[in-house]
């Protein structure tokens, strides 16, 4: 097997010829697992999101071709579901839960503070590409409201101050 070089130019070029990209292996495996049947689309998009961090256009075309799903349908599914994003995320991701318990517990104020002090709203990334903010519907951690996820780690009983503090440590 060919050795992958990791220069950025190489990466963007390889996205045009998808089978060359090592990140695509997991995607291809997922599709093969479902024998390239069209109903594997959502599972495949999960795989794309996981290995690329977002749904890259070239990869979407590759997926559409392999699963024989119309391009517009792939895009439709990708934008219907909130878990998928078409933009590359920042280096760090902060998810704030806006479920009922968290809302009652004050997660609205936390979002307000992030907007004010970090300057990003839901779905946005800081200009330096360091931090992305996402809003979750409900993390299911209502007992710990308000809750959030910082780079994959769930944290509970948040306050505007400790959230700003956590984000601050990333920058």
């Amino acid at each position, binding site marked *: 097997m060919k050795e992958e070089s990791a220069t950025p130019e190489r990466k963007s070029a390889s996205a045009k010829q998808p089978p060359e990209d090592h990140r695509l292996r997991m995607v291809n495996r997922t599709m093969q697992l479902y024998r390239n049947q*069209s*109903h*594997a*689309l*959502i*599972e495949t*998009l*999960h795989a794309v999101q996981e290995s690329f961090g977002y749904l890259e256009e070239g990869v979407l075309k590759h997926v559409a071709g392999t699963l024989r*799903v119309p391009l517009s*349908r792939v895009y*439709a*599914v990708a934008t*219907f*579901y*909130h*878990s*998928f994003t078409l933009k590359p995320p920042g280096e760090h991701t902060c998810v704030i839960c*806006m*479920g*009922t*318990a*968290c*809302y*009652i*517990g004050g997660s609205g104020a936390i979002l307000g503070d992030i907007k004010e002090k970090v300057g990003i709203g839901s779905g946005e990334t800081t200009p330096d590409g360091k931090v992305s903010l996402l809003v*979750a*519907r*409900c*993390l*299911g*951690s*209502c*007992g*710990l*409201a308000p*809750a959030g996820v910082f780079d994959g*780690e*769930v*944290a*509970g009983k948040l306050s505007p101050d400790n959230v700003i503090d956590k984000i601050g440590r990333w920058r």
Partner: protein
Amino acid sequence: MTLNIEDLHQIAKIEQDTQQGFQHRINVCVAAGCLSCGSGVVKDALAREVGKRGLDNWCQVKGVGCLGLCTAGPLIALEVGGRFYQGVKVADVADIVEALGASPVDRLLYPDDSAFFQRQLRIVTENCGRIDPERIEEYIAESGYEGLYLALTQMTRQEVLGQVTESGLRGRGGAGFPTGLKWTTVAKTVDSTKFVICNADEGDPGAFMDRSVLESDPHRVIEGMAVAGYATGASQGFIYVRAEYPLAVKRVRMALSQAERMGILGNNIFNTNFSFNIKVRLGAGAFVCGEETALIASIEGRMGRPRPRPPFPAEYGLWEHPTLINNVETFANIPPIIRHGGKWFAGIGTEKSKGTKVFALAGKIVNTGLIEVPMGMPLREIVYEIGGGIPEGKRFKAVQTGGPSGGCIPQQFLDMPVDYDSLMQVGSIMGSGGMIVMDESSCMVDVAKFFMEFCMSESCGKCAPCRVGTRQIYDILCKITAGGATTEDLATLEDLCDLVKHTSLCGLGQSAPNPVLTTLNYFRDEYLAHIHDKKCLAGACKTAKEVS
């Protein structure tokens, strides 16, 4: 490999003997709630401490599913003595191990007489917090898969259907449709291909029962599904679980592979001619996928847009085949129903709502967490005794049940028994079991706005009334909370709620106005105060005064 009952009993025996071999057993809650407070490190530290002292054969440390009292996490339970330690930190570990067999560590002790643990009746969550969810043997030791064995080897399909029908079990996902009837409908269809789907797309903001069950006792759900497969004639199952619940996904996948390895799933289960497989499908963040037809569309790889019913999935479901869809809690009720009989189950609860219900208690309440109580328990008992009342001496205002499809129940109904029909009578629904308590500092208009924002952005956009109507309702609620609305706006609000409720295509739209309608009904004065006096009675909408 195929098992018979002796094998099951053997596994159970070995497991029980192992457990009995320990003088002490420390159960550390490793469900998502406690994990996020650091229970994982506490568990590791405990195991290290026990090992360091050479007590490996004397004391067992294991991770278990949800103990229920999420607010006090990380929570650990001492199985001998039945004590709970709350808010445990790594620094406490030495003291805990030291205290084993002696008097407990007082500063960590959760009060013994607490109603939180006393008043509950655990059926669905009987194993939660007691067994290691990552080991099938522990489930088997608690009579796990015995129900499936009974059903497959000693009961006809009709008998299984009969037991489920007799139990009076109703769907725990929201509408409370009789489970036996649903199963029977699917069983009656003649198609050779049928499906069983477990709806674990728990999307209600404020509900985490299903997550807890999957994280704490995944095999119970698998067993329930397999029984359903047998009774309805399906051989393929799907668990549709939210991608936002990574731990639940992991434990379900682990449980599935364990069950497959033991031959509890697969071909010729327990040497019968029944075969059943289960696959996991991940949701991708769409609340509307909790609706049956949308969920099916999503499993088929499409956008989760509901289609008009009839035909119902029971006749015309996944890939056009008859499909049974129940939620996690419903399936989790099945194994004990098969083991103890439908009559036993029907003896619990009220006349029309049988069994127990798991609730996720959250919001302005002392004991946030997961509880299971018999149907018909008065709301007051849940809020004030199990829930411990309202913190900071504040006044109770309302309980929100049923999530965005439910309603807000005011103080005057506190003595109402909690069951499907009573909740319906006051304009709310059981829903999946989220229970959010609100105190005097919560503005009910703001709460209605919160839910409408949810419905608006979760609307799939297929039918016009829901797509545009929820947005229009939301706009008016914004206007009200900002202090800019008139009495005419209030009339338009009610008119729109009526329209969306009666003309939307699916349940999401039809129930989207409920939070507005119940708050209008019970807290109209708060709406009027925003409109006439430009004032928020709860002091939550701060801009009300400035805007005119």
